[in-house]
Protein backbone atom coordinates (compact mmCIF):
# COMPACT_ATOMS: atom_id res chain seq x y z
CA UNK A 1 0.00 0.00 0.00
CA UNK A 2 1.42 3.26 -1.03
CA UNK A 3 -0.18 5.57 1.54
CA UNK A 4 1.06 3.75 4.64
CA UNK A 5 4.44 5.22 5.31
CA UNK A 6 7.27 2.84 5.44
CA UNK A 7 8.41 2.30 8.96
CA UNK A 8 12.03 3.29 9.31
CA UNK A 9 13.49 2.83 12.75
CA UNK A 10 16.61 4.80 13.43
CA UNK A 11 18.78 1.74 13.87
CA UNK A 12 17.86 -1.46 12.10
CA UNK A 13 18.88 -4.77 13.50
CA UNK A 14 21.00 -7.04 11.35
CA UNK A 15 18.83 -9.25 9.16
CA UNK A 16 18.26 -12.53 10.81
CA UNK A 17 19.67 -15.54 9.06
CA UNK A 18 17.31 -17.38 6.82
CA UNK A 19 15.69 -20.32 8.54
CA UNK A 20 17.25 -23.65 7.79
CA UNK A 21 20.62 -22.20 6.88
CA UNK A 22 23.46 -23.74 8.73
CA UNK A 23 25.52 -21.33 10.81
CA UNK A 24 29.00 -22.41 11.59
CA UNK A 25 30.17 -21.42 15.05
CA UNK A 26 33.16 -19.11 14.94
CA UNK A 27 36.54 -20.46 15.83
CA UNK A 28 38.58 -18.98 18.66
CA UNK A 29 40.98 -17.43 16.12
CA UNK A 30 38.18 -15.63 14.25
CA UNK A 31 36.75 -14.28 17.49
CA UNK A 32 40.16 -12.95 18.43
CA UNK A 33 40.55 -11.16 15.06
CA UNK A 34 37.14 -9.54 15.41
CA UNK A 35 37.97 -8.36 18.87
CA UNK A 36 41.22 -6.79 17.66
CA UNK A 37 39.53 -5.08 14.70
CA UNK A 38 36.88 -3.62 16.88
CA UNK A 39 39.37 -2.08 19.26
CA UNK A 40 41.75 -0.64 16.69
CA UNK A 41 41.44 2.15 14.16
CA UNK A 42 43.54 1.76 11.06
CA UNK A 43 44.08 5.10 9.39
CA UNK A 44 46.69 7.51 8.15
CA UNK A 45 48.21 9.69 10.82
CA UNK A 46 47.46 12.80 8.81
CA UNK A 47 43.78 12.18 8.38
CA UNK A 48 43.45 11.24 12.01
CA UNK A 49 45.01 14.48 13.14
CA UNK A 50 42.74 16.28 10.71
CA UNK A 51 39.73 14.54 12.11
CA UNK A 52 40.73 15.43 15.63
CA UNK A 53 41.36 19.05 14.71
CA UNK A 54 38.03 19.36 12.99
CA UNK A 55 36.31 17.89 16.00
CA UNK A 56 38.10 20.32 18.26
CA UNK A 57 37.31 23.31 16.07
CA UNK A 58 33.69 22.41 15.47
CA UNK A 59 32.84 21.75 19.08
CA UNK A 60 34.50 24.78 20.60
CA UNK A 61 33.65 27.76 18.42
CA UNK A 62 34.49 31.06 20.04
CA UNK A 63 32.28 33.79 18.59
CA UNK A 64 33.20 37.44 18.58
CA UNK A 65 30.85 39.39 20.80
CA UNK A 66 29.99 41.99 18.25
CA UNK A 67 26.47 43.18 17.69
CA UNK A 68 25.27 45.72 15.17
CA UNK A 69 21.51 46.10 15.38
CA UNK A 70 18.30 44.34 16.31
CA UNK A 71 19.63 40.89 15.50
CA UNK A 72 22.32 41.36 18.16
CA UNK A 73 19.66 41.23 20.84
CA UNK A 74 18.58 37.83 19.61
CA UNK A 75 22.25 36.85 19.50
CA UNK A 76 22.46 37.83 23.17
CA UNK A 77 19.38 35.75 23.84
CA UNK A 78 21.11 32.58 22.66
CA UNK A 79 23.61 33.07 25.46
CA UNK A 80 20.74 33.55 27.88
CA UNK A 81 19.08 30.95 30.04
CA UNK A 82 16.37 29.81 27.65
CA UNK A 83 18.39 28.92 24.57
CA UNK A 84 21.80 28.31 26.12
CA UNK A 85 24.24 28.01 23.25
CA UNK A 86 26.79 26.29 25.47
CA UNK A 87 25.00 23.06 24.65
CA UNK A 88 26.74 23.36 21.29
CA UNK A 89 30.05 24.53 22.60
CA UNK A 90 29.87 28.10 21.35
CA UNK A 91 29.26 30.07 24.52
CA UNK A 92 32.65 31.73 24.95
CA UNK A 93 31.91 35.15 23.48
CA UNK A 94 35.18 37.05 23.12
CA UNK A 95 35.47 40.79 23.24
CA UNK A 96 38.56 40.95 21.06
CA UNK A 97 38.68 39.75 17.46
CA UNK A 98 42.13 38.33 18.07
CA UNK A 99 40.70 35.66 20.34
CA UNK A 100 37.69 34.70 18.27
CA UNK A 101 37.17 32.37 15.35
CA UNK A 102 33.56 33.04 14.41
CA UNK A 103 32.11 36.40 13.50
CA UNK A 104 28.33 36.55 13.70
CA UNK A 105 27.40 39.63 11.69
CA UNK A 106 24.22 40.39 13.60
CA UNK A 107 22.50 43.31 12.01
CA UNK A 108 22.61 45.80 9.21
CA UNK A 109 26.02 46.97 8.04
CA UNK A 110 26.04 50.61 7.06
CA UNK A 111 28.42 52.12 4.56
CA UNK A 112 30.18 53.85 7.43
CA UNK A 113 30.58 50.59 9.34
CA UNK A 114 31.72 48.43 6.44
CA UNK A 115 35.46 49.21 6.70
CA UNK A 116 35.33 48.46 10.42
CA UNK A 117 33.72 45.08 9.86
CA UNK A 118 36.32 44.24 7.26
CA UNK A 119 39.11 45.23 9.61
CA UNK A 120 37.68 43.13 12.42
CA UNK A 121 37.54 40.18 10.07
CA UNK A 122 41.16 40.65 9.14
CA UNK A 123 42.18 40.87 12.77
CA UNK A 124 40.75 37.44 13.53
CA UNK A 125 43.28 34.60 13.46
CA UNK A 126 42.89 31.74 10.97
CA UNK A 127 40.87 29.57 10.70
CA UNK A 128 37.84 31.84 10.86
CA UNK A 129 34.22 31.64 9.87
CA UNK A 130 31.42 34.13 9.32
CA UNK A 131 27.70 33.75 9.88
CA UNK A 132 25.48 36.40 8.28
CA UNK A 133 22.61 36.64 10.71
CA UNK A 134 19.37 38.16 9.53
CA UNK A 135 17.99 39.55 6.33
CA UNK A 136 20.03 42.75 6.55
CA UNK A 137 23.46 41.23 6.67
CA UNK A 138 22.50 38.57 4.14
CA UNK A 139 21.04 40.84 1.47
CA UNK A 140 20.14 44.27 2.84
CA UNK A 141 16.73 43.24 4.14
CA UNK A 142 14.07 45.91 4.24
CA UNK A 143 16.62 48.68 3.93
CA UNK A 144 17.32 48.96 0.26
CA UNK A 145 18.74 52.47 0.32
CA UNK A 146 21.79 54.67 0.17
CA UNK A 147 23.07 54.01 3.68
CA UNK A 148 23.08 50.23 4.00
CA UNK A 149 25.43 47.72 2.43
CA UNK A 150 23.34 45.25 0.45
CA UNK A 151 24.73 42.11 2.03
CA UNK A 152 27.83 41.66 4.13
CA UNK A 153 29.13 39.13 1.60
CA UNK A 154 30.33 42.09 -0.41
CA UNK A 155 33.12 42.65 2.11
CA UNK A 156 33.75 39.35 3.93
CA UNK A 157 33.28 35.72 2.85
CA UNK A 158 30.19 34.26 4.48
CA UNK A 159 29.88 30.59 5.44
CA UNK A 160 26.31 30.37 6.68
CA UNK A 161 23.34 32.66 6.03
CA UNK A 162 20.59 32.66 8.62
CA UNK A 163 17.36 34.16 7.26
CA UNK A 164 14.83 36.02 9.35
CA UNK A 165 14.17 39.50 10.60
CA UNK A 166 15.36 38.85 13.23
CA UNK A 167 15.95 35.10 13.08
CA UNK A 168 14.62 33.34 16.11
CA UNK A 169 17.37 32.14 18.44
CA UNK A 170 16.57 28.59 17.39
CA UNK A 171 17.37 29.56 13.82
CA UNK A 172 20.73 30.96 14.84
CA UNK A 173 21.46 27.78 16.78
CA UNK A 174 20.63 25.85 13.65
CA UNK A 175 23.02 28.08 11.73
CA UNK A 176 25.77 27.31 14.22
CA UNK A 177 25.08 23.59 13.86
CA UNK A 178 25.26 23.92 10.09
CA UNK A 179 28.60 25.63 10.51
CA UNK A 180 29.76 22.74 12.64
CA UNK A 181 28.81 20.36 9.86
CA UNK A 182 30.74 22.46 7.42
CA UNK A 183 33.80 22.53 9.64
CA UNK A 184 33.71 18.76 10.13
CA UNK A 185 33.52 18.20 6.39
CA UNK A 186 36.34 20.56 5.55
CA UNK A 187 39.95 19.66 4.89
CA UNK A 188 41.88 21.10 7.76
CA UNK A 189 45.11 23.00 7.34
CA UNK A 190 47.75 21.51 9.59
CA UNK A 191 50.67 23.61 10.56
CA UNK A 192 51.54 26.94 9.03
CA UNK A 193 50.20 27.54 5.55
CA UNK A 194 53.05 27.28 3.00
CA UNK A 195 54.40 30.67 2.18
CA UNK A 196 53.98 30.17 -1.54
CA UNK A 197 50.27 29.72 -1.10
CA UNK A 198 49.97 32.80 1.08
CA UNK A 199 51.60 34.85 -1.62
CA UNK A 200 49.33 33.33 -4.21
CA UNK A 201 46.27 34.17 -2.16
CA UNK A 202 47.41 37.73 -1.94
CA UNK A 203 47.93 37.78 -5.66
CA UNK A 204 51.65 38.50 -5.41
CA UNK A 205 52.99 35.34 -7.05
Amino acid at each position, binding site marked *: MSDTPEFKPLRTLAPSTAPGELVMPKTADELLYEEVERGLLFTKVESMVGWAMNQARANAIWPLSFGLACCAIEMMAIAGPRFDVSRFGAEVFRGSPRQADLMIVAGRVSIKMAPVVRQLYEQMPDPKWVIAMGACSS*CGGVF*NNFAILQGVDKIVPVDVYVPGCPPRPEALLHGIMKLQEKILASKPEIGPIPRKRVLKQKGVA
Partner: protein
Amino acid sequence: MPLTPERVEQKLRERFPDAAIERQTGDAVRDYTLYVPGESLVEMCTFLRDDAELDFGMLPWMGGCDHMPAVPRFETVYNLLSLSNSLRFTLKVRIAEEQPRVPSVVAVWPTANWHERETYDFYGIEFTGHPELTRILLPDDWVGWPLRKDSPLGYEEVAFTHNTPNRRLPSPSLKKLAPKKVKYRAQ
Protein backbone atom coordinates in the same frame (compact mmCIF):
# COMPACT_ATOMS: atom_id res chain seq x y z
CA MET B 1 -4.86 80.49 34.08
CA PRO B 2 -2.81 78.03 32.08
CA LEU B 3 -0.60 79.40 29.37
CA THR B 4 -2.05 79.12 25.88
CA PRO B 5 -0.20 79.24 22.57
CA GLU B 6 -2.17 82.36 21.62
CA ARG B 7 -0.73 84.12 24.63
CA VAL B 8 2.77 83.08 23.55
CA GLU B 9 2.20 84.52 20.10
CA GLN B 10 0.82 87.73 21.60
CA LYS B 11 3.82 88.17 23.88
CA LEU B 12 6.18 87.48 21.03
CA ARG B 13 4.50 90.06 18.82
CA GLU B 14 4.57 92.63 21.63
CA ARG B 15 8.27 92.10 22.19
CA PHE B 16 9.18 92.06 18.47
CA PRO B 17 6.72 94.48 16.83
CA ASP B 18 8.74 94.85 13.63
CA ALA B 19 9.49 91.21 12.91
CA ALA B 20 7.47 89.45 10.24
CA ILE B 21 5.72 86.81 12.30
CA GLU B 22 3.15 84.70 10.54
CA ARG B 23 1.01 81.85 11.79
CA GLN B 24 1.03 78.70 9.68
CA THR B 25 -2.42 77.85 8.41
CA GLY B 26 -3.87 74.78 6.80
CA ASP B 27 -6.65 72.31 7.52
CA ALA B 28 -4.40 69.69 9.08
CA VAL B 29 -1.72 71.77 10.80
CA ARG B 30 -2.18 70.18 14.19
CA ASP B 31 0.39 72.11 16.21
CA TYR B 32 0.51 75.83 16.83
CA THR B 33 3.23 76.97 14.45
CA LEU B 34 4.72 80.37 13.73
CA TYR B 35 6.95 81.36 10.87
CA VAL B 36 9.63 83.71 12.12
CA PRO B 37 12.39 85.50 10.21
CA GLY B 38 15.85 83.96 10.41
CA GLU B 39 17.63 87.16 11.48
CA SER B 40 15.74 87.51 14.74
CA LEU B 41 15.57 83.79 15.52
CA VAL B 42 18.26 83.77 18.21
CA GLU B 43 16.83 86.82 19.96
CA MET B 44 13.35 85.34 19.93
CA CYS B 45 14.54 82.02 21.26
CA THR B 46 16.45 83.73 24.06
CA PHE B 47 13.33 85.72 24.92
CA LEU B 48 11.14 82.62 24.90
CA ARG B 49 13.61 80.80 27.11
CA ASP B 50 14.24 83.58 29.63
CA ASP B 51 10.78 85.05 30.03
CA ALA B 52 9.51 84.01 33.47
CA GLU B 53 5.98 83.35 32.30
CA LEU B 54 6.81 81.46 29.11
CA ASP B 55 9.87 79.55 30.37
CA PHE B 56 10.60 77.48 27.26
CA GLY B 57 13.63 75.86 28.87
CA MET B 58 13.84 72.82 26.65
CA LEU B 59 14.29 72.27 22.95
CA PRO B 60 13.06 68.70 22.49
CA TRP B 61 14.05 68.63 18.84
CA MET B 62 14.70 70.62 15.75
CA GLY B 63 14.93 69.48 12.18
CA GLY B 64 14.78 70.46 8.58
CA CYS B 65 12.41 69.93 5.72
CA ASP B 66 12.68 70.27 1.96
CA HIS B 67 9.60 71.53 0.09
CA MET B 68 11.26 71.23 -3.25
CA PRO B 69 9.19 72.96 -5.89
CA ALA B 70 8.11 75.62 -3.40
CA VAL B 71 10.02 78.85 -2.95
CA PRO B 72 11.72 79.34 -0.51
CA ARG B 73 12.71 75.75 -0.64
CA PHE B 74 13.87 74.73 2.83
CA GLU B 75 12.63 75.30 6.30
CA THR B 76 13.88 74.47 9.77
CA VAL B 77 11.48 73.49 12.53
CA TYR B 78 12.04 74.17 16.23
CA ASN B 79 9.89 72.41 18.78
CA LEU B 80 9.99 74.16 22.15
CA LEU B 81 8.77 72.80 25.45
CA SER B 82 7.92 74.70 28.60
CA LEU B 83 8.24 72.23 31.45
CA SER B 84 6.44 74.39 33.99
CA ASN B 85 3.43 74.92 31.71
CA SER B 86 3.52 71.54 29.90
CA LEU B 87 3.17 73.49 26.69
CA ARG B 88 4.68 72.96 23.27
CA PHE B 89 5.28 75.61 20.69
CA THR B 90 6.69 75.35 17.19
CA LEU B 91 8.77 77.88 15.33
CA LYS B 92 9.73 77.66 11.68
CA VAL B 93 12.22 79.52 9.58
CA ARG B 94 12.02 79.63 5.80
CA ILE B 95 15.33 79.35 3.97
CA ALA B 96 16.13 80.10 0.36
CA GLU B 97 17.67 77.52 -1.93
CA GLU B 98 20.93 79.29 -2.80
CA GLN B 99 23.31 79.28 0.13
CA PRO B 100 20.85 77.90 2.69
CA ARG B 101 21.89 79.56 5.89
CA VAL B 102 20.29 80.15 9.27
CA PRO B 103 21.72 81.31 12.62
CA SER B 104 22.53 78.59 15.10
CA VAL B 105 20.71 78.35 18.43
CA VAL B 106 23.43 76.34 20.19
CA ALA B 107 24.09 79.32 22.44
CA VAL B 108 20.49 79.25 23.63
CA TRP B 109 20.04 75.51 24.05
CA PRO B 110 23.23 73.41 23.93
CA THR B 111 21.18 70.41 22.82
CA ALA B 112 20.76 72.02 19.40
CA ASN B 113 24.34 71.07 18.62
CA TRP B 114 23.72 67.56 17.30
CA HIS B 115 20.36 68.43 15.81
CA GLU B 116 21.91 71.14 13.72
CA ARG B 117 24.74 68.89 12.68
CA GLU B 118 22.18 66.30 11.64
CA THR B 119 20.21 68.84 9.63
CA TYR B 120 23.41 70.00 7.98
CA ASP B 121 24.27 66.41 7.23
CA PHE B 122 20.90 65.70 5.63
CA TYR B 123 20.09 68.97 3.86
CA GLY B 124 23.27 70.97 3.64
CA ILE B 125 21.72 73.86 5.57
CA GLU B 126 24.49 75.91 7.09
CA PHE B 127 24.14 77.06 10.69
CA THR B 128 26.14 80.23 11.25
CA GLY B 129 27.81 80.38 14.64
CA HIS B 130 27.74 76.63 15.19
CA PRO B 131 30.89 75.52 17.07
CA GLU B 132 31.61 72.44 14.98
CA LEU B 133 29.53 71.98 11.88
CA THR B 134 30.55 68.59 10.48
CA ARG B 135 28.76 65.52 9.26
CA ILE B 136 27.39 63.39 12.06
CA LEU B 137 25.54 60.35 10.77
CA LEU B 138 27.04 59.86 7.35
CA PRO B 139 30.73 59.18 6.69
CA ASP B 140 32.88 62.29 6.63
CA ASP B 141 33.78 61.86 2.98
CA TRP B 142 30.19 61.55 1.80
CA VAL B 143 29.25 63.71 -1.16
CA GLY B 144 25.74 65.14 -1.42
CA TRP B 145 22.80 65.80 0.88
CA PRO B 146 20.78 62.60 1.07
CA LEU B 147 17.45 63.88 2.37
CA ARG B 148 16.99 66.55 -0.25
CA LYS B 149 14.17 65.65 -2.55
CA ASP B 150 16.39 65.67 -5.63
CA SER B 151 18.74 63.12 -4.10
CA PRO B 152 17.83 59.53 -4.98
CA LEU B 153 17.06 56.82 -2.44
CA GLY B 154 19.90 54.72 -3.80
CA TYR B 155 17.85 51.68 -4.58
CA GLU B 156 19.75 48.58 -5.60
CA GLU B 157 17.97 46.15 -7.88
CA VAL B 158 17.57 42.67 -6.44
CA ALA B 159 19.40 40.21 -8.68
CA PHE B 160 16.86 37.76 -10.00
CA THR B 161 17.46 35.46 -12.94
CA HIS B 162 15.11 37.49 -15.16
CA ASN B 163 16.94 40.78 -14.75
CA THR B 164 20.55 39.62 -14.45
CA PRO B 165 21.82 38.15 -17.73
CA ASN B 166 24.71 36.15 -16.35
CA ARG B 167 22.92 34.70 -13.43
CA ARG B 168 22.15 31.01 -13.75
CA LEU B 169 20.14 28.67 -11.65
CA PRO B 170 22.35 26.48 -9.50
CA SER B 171 23.37 23.68 -11.79
CA PRO B 172 23.50 20.09 -10.60
CA SER B 173 27.28 20.15 -10.92
CA LEU B 174 27.42 22.70 -8.11
CA LYS B 175 26.26 20.02 -5.76
CA LYS B 176 29.77 18.65 -5.78
CA LEU B 177 30.97 21.78 -4.07
CA ALA B 178 28.43 21.57 -1.29
CA PRO B 179 29.77 20.22 1.99
CA LYS B 180 29.30 16.54 2.52
CA LYS B 181 26.63 15.59 4.96
CA VAL B 182 28.33 14.22 8.03
CA LYS B 183 27.26 13.29 11.47
CA TYR B 184 28.76 15.82 13.81
CA ARG B 185 28.24 13.88 16.98
CA ALA B 186 30.03 10.57 17.15
CA GLN B 187 27.80 7.97 18.65
